[in-house]
């Protein structure tokens, strides 16, 4: 009786490899979300430039499927794994398996709680949540009646953004309600509608991603309260930025998913070029606001 | 074993079905239980075997006050019930069917297939039937399924066996076999409660007859001290004239003709004609293929070869809808599964095949529909409060009349009736015959498939006998006798 991931192959000196020989396994949490599509594009764009082979799998937001997907990639003998975990804790054994097989791992957007990773490429979600709360306090005033639209329960982005938001909001905002809308635009709409019914004096909304923010904006519009309620989103997707430009969205905490992907791919190249890699590579966060 | 039931009462909701029934059975006797459809015979037996609970009354078994909580308990105590409605598992094999709920098993709970097979083979040998034990039951004919039900009951070594219309789906041969078995059982002191609507059988095998009417036991007498007319009078409360009403219709031109109908492995080269106003009886042994021929020509099953002519014109029938459009109606042998929507009202059932006729631009004219249903119900004497009663609340005979009404309603030129009186009481049977006569008077060509020989002889103008998927012969009314039909049916000449 043995356990998988038990005998980690000692990662001796890295065997240097040319970008064109590299086979990179990519596991994305879900491609049902524009954010991760951009992220994957960032990876593949750079890989294409360098002639690197990419094998990509989509976990459809299922932690168990992601573990299976990564097993499949390990089976195919990829040189390195770029993993965008569905969940930071659940990814640990998969990272350990990769470690055992001697395959280096880079995590993207979300960390792995265990195992050895070369680096984590991510934006700081806690900080992003704080940024959003601070900006709301700035535009709607301290103690503004604020509601929060949360992402998929249990997702690290939900937890961390919520944590950051609450850190600041506790002190400077009056949070009247917080409900999940599962990172989904349609749910953002209905949940916001209902919140408007029960809390007529809402002044501001923090949506943990732009999709929900855009849904909430539709609800605010049909309640005839456009302009009275400030909405701050997260992600800086194409639609989100457009809405900021149009003035319907007050601001979005823009991540740069495509940049994140590129940074991760570049880290992989550097790794095989024998360079030392930082433990954490920060992907830039930027508050994009209207005028 | 002796059973005595006294003052049994039972209501379903506001419908009081049994209103004081006395019934008893002694070891080694065949006791016939007679009564019109809905008289309460099956209900009484359901109470005896613990399927229903009586509202009042007393059951004494071997001198002891006792009642069974469920059929299993009854069976374990030696009372076995062959139900009127078959309780089979179509998707399971014959062997599995025979032993459901009473599998032979070892201490570990494993099923002992070999032992069960031996026992089943022995029972089938006693019954004189040859049915492959590994065949799925759904592939068997109704008659064969009925034999399985009988075998099941015999295997329980019961002291009292209730047979609720065991012969409704059987033909002469199997009935003979069954009667032999009943005689053997009698010598072993087994008591039989025998329910049937076939009068001649009752007088052949029963020792005593109890007649029920409207939930009350009217009379119990020794069979040898009573007569057919006597029993009928007690059942229906009045005298019935001749059993098979006289038919006067003029027989006209050929309306319906088939040439060389063939379906691989089922039937071959079936050619026959039916004239306006004529009733053609189709006889044959169980599984001869009569039902399949009718189903195929009506478009329910596919036909491999053959031609069909209606009023001299060749027609193609690919599905029932096409057949109905041409003026052909088909009363199937299995009314519960194929004839009726049990939960629906009488009206909805009657109007179903004609529903397009009541539509104006797709909207249903419910007034016209109701008038139509009412008329047919009156015409056929369907016993019900009104046309909105659900069909499931009717007695078997009345259900059969509803199916009939539905096919009469479409104004068919050709009417195929497969076992039209199966499970129907004497009074209702007579009404159905009368109705067939009237339709014939109006020039309808009628095909009647029946396993009841006296009925075939009593009703048909001409008899076609099917043997193993072939037309074995044709007999005019004047020349037809039971012997001749049986000879053809068994492949003799």
């Amino acid at each position, binding site marked *: 009786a043995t356990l998988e991931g038990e005998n980690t192959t000692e990662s001796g000196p890295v065997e240097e490899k040319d970008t064109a020989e590299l086979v990179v396994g990519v596991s994305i949490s879900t*491609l049902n979300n*524009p954010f991760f*599509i951009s992220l994957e594009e960032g990876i593949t764009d750079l890989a294409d430039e360098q002639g690197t082979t990419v094998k990509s799998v989509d976990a459809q937001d299922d932690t168990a499927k992601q573990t299976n997907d990564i097993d499949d990639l390990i089976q195919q003998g990829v040189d390195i794994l770029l993993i965008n975990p569905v969940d930071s804790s659940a990814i640990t054994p998969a990272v350990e398996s990769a470690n055992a097989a001697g395959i280096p791992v880079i995590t993207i957007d979300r960390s792995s709680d265990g195992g050895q990773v070369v680096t984590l490429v991510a934006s700081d979600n806690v900080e992003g949540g704080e940024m959003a709360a601070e900006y709301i306090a700035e535009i709607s005033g301290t103690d503004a009646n604020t509601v929060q639209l949360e992402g998929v*329960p249990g997702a690290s982005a939900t937890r961390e953004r919520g944590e950051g938001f609450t850190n600041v909001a506790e002190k400077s905002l009056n949070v009247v*309600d917080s*409900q*999940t809308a599962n990172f*989904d*635009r*349609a749910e953002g*709409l*209905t949940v916001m*509608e*209902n919140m408007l*019914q*029960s809390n007529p004096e809402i002044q501001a909304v923090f949506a943990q991603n732009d999709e929900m923010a*855009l*849904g909430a904006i*539709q609800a605010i519009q*049909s309640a005839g309260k456009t302009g009275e309620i400030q909405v701050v989103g997260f992600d800086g997707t*194409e*639609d989100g930025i*457009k809405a900021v430009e149009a003035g319907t969205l007050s601001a979005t905490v823009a991540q740069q998913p495509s940049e994140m992907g590129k940074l991760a791919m570049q880290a992989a190249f550097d790794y095989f070029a024998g360079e030392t890699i930082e433990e954490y590579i920060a992907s830039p966060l930027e508050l994009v606001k209207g005028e | 074993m002796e059973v005595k039931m006294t003052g049994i009462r039972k209501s*379903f*909701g506001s*419908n009081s079905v049994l209103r004081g029934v006395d019934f008893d059975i002694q070891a080694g006797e065949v006791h016939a239980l007679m009564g019109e459809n809905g008289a309460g015979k099956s209900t009484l037996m359901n109470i005896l075997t613990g*399927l*229903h609970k009586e509202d009042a009354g007393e059951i004494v078994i071997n001198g002891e006050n006792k009642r069974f909580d469920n059929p299993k308990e009854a069976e374990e105590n030696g009372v076995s019930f062959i139900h009127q409605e078959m309780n089979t598992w179509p998707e399971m094999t014959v062997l599995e069917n025979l032993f459901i709920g009473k599998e032979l098993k070892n201490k570990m709970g494993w099923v002992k297939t070999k032992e069960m097979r031996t026992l089943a083979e022995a029972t089938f040998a006693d019954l004189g039937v040859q049915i492959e034990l590994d065949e799925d039951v759904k592939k068997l004919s109704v008659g064969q399924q009925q034999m399985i039900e009988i075998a099941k009951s015999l295997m329980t070594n019961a002291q009292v066996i209730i047979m609720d219309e065991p012969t409704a789906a059987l033909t002469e041969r199997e009935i003979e076999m069954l009667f032999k078995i009943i005689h053997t059982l009698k010598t072993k002191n087994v008591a039989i409660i025998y329910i049937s609507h076939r009068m001649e059988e009752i007088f052949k095998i029963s020792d005593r007859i109890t007649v029920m009417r409207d939930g009350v036991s009217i009379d119990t007498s020794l069979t040898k001290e009573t007569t057919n007319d006597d029993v009928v009078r007690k059942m229906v409360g009045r005298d019935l004239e001749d059993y098979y009403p006289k038919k006067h219709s003029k027989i006209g031109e050929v309306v319906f003709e088939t040439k060389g109908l063939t379906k691989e492995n089922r039937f071959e080269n079936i050619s026959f004609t039916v004239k306006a106003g004529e009733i053609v009886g189709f006889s044959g042994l169980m599984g001869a293929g009569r039902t399949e021929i009718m189903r195929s020509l*009506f478009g*329910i099953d596919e036909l491999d070869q053959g031609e069909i002519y209606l009023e001299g014109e060749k027609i193609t029938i690919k*599905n*029932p*809808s096409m*057949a*109905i*459009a041409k003026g052909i109606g088909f009363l*199937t042998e299995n009314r519960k*599964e*194929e*004839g*009726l*929507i*049990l*939960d*629906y009202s009488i009206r*909805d059932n009657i109007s*179903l*095949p004609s*529903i*397009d006729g*009541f*539509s104006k631009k*797709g*909207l*249903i004219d419910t007034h016209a529909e109701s008038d139509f249903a009412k008329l047919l119900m009156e015409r056929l004497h369907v016993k019900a409060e009104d046309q*909105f009663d*659900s069909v*499931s*609340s009717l007695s078997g005979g009345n259900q059969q009349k509803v199916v009939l009404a*539905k096919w009469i309603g479409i104004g068919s030129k050709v009417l195929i009736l497969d076992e039209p009186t199966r499970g129907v009481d004497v009074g209702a049977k007579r009404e159905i015959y009368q109705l067939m006569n009237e339709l014939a008077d109006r020039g309808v060509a009628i095909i009647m498939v029946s396993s009841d020989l006296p009925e075939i002889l009593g009703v048909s103008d001409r008899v076609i006998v099917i043997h193993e998927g072939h037309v074995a012969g044709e007999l005019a009314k004047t020349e037809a006798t039971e012997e001749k039909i049986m000879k053809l049916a068994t492949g003799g000449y």
Partner: protein
Amino acid sequence: MIQTDTVKTKKRNPKDYMGKLGPLLALVVLVILVTVVNPGFISPNNLLNLLRQVSTNALIAFGMTFVIITGGIDLSVGSTLALSSALMAGAIASGLDPILAMVLSLFAGTAFGAVNGLLITKGKMAPFIATLATMTIYRGLTLVYTNGNPITGIGDSFIFKFVGRGYLFGIPFPVVLMIISFILLYILLHKMTFGRKTFAIGGNEKAAFIAGIKNDRIKTGIYAISGLMASLAGIIITSRLDSAQPTAGTSYEMDAIASVVLGGTSLSGGRGRLVGTLIGALIIGTLNNGMNLLGISSFYQQVVKGIVIIIAVLLDRKNKK
């Protein structure tokens, strides 16, 4: 004792009325409960809001009612909604007239439904598995077509905006669409031969076939209606969100089926009423809206919703006895 001990006879059985009133009663109780705790619930504004929220689920559930009456089920409605919406949005984005694009979407939805129907009738597949497969396929096609991204930039046309966001005499237009669809489908189901045949198929498929009903045609038509209603709901959602989402409609089949069953339509077929479905949809909508108004956490909301479904179905059973 066996179950059939009941008399399910008379049309005019008073208990039947109870059975029919069961769902309505459940709705009334629910409304009163929510109102007591939060009187804001019955403000005209919130009621209109509620109705608008209910409209998409109700439309899908109307179609589902036909399907379930035949003894079938349609798991693909959510994916049908997404795919037909994506096609419409794509067409608008590439310059097609929005009205034509909406018609296109309805046609597409109808066609996807008909494919289900054909798999079930000609392919003799169980409805559950056939629509489970097409649920996956239509969703996959949506993702392929949209490449996983929402389709945006479709919101210029007034008519298109109006469908999801407009008001007619103060009533949200989706609600108007729901009412019109209800009336038309009510007539179809309860007053026309098509409906009679639908019931007959569900009541006894073999008997219906032998009585000359073209089962295959009717059933295919019914799945097509279900697809049509899903695509109509899709148009509303797309208009409201001003974009077609690749994940739109995910698991909408569950709410639709729950609405139908809460309305007293039997999953074993042959029995059902469209007005029941409307009430069922209102119950689900009131639950969703009401629990938000009461500030119940979304985790507990799921628990409560499940329990209410169980209670409502059990009560309905009881009344029907």
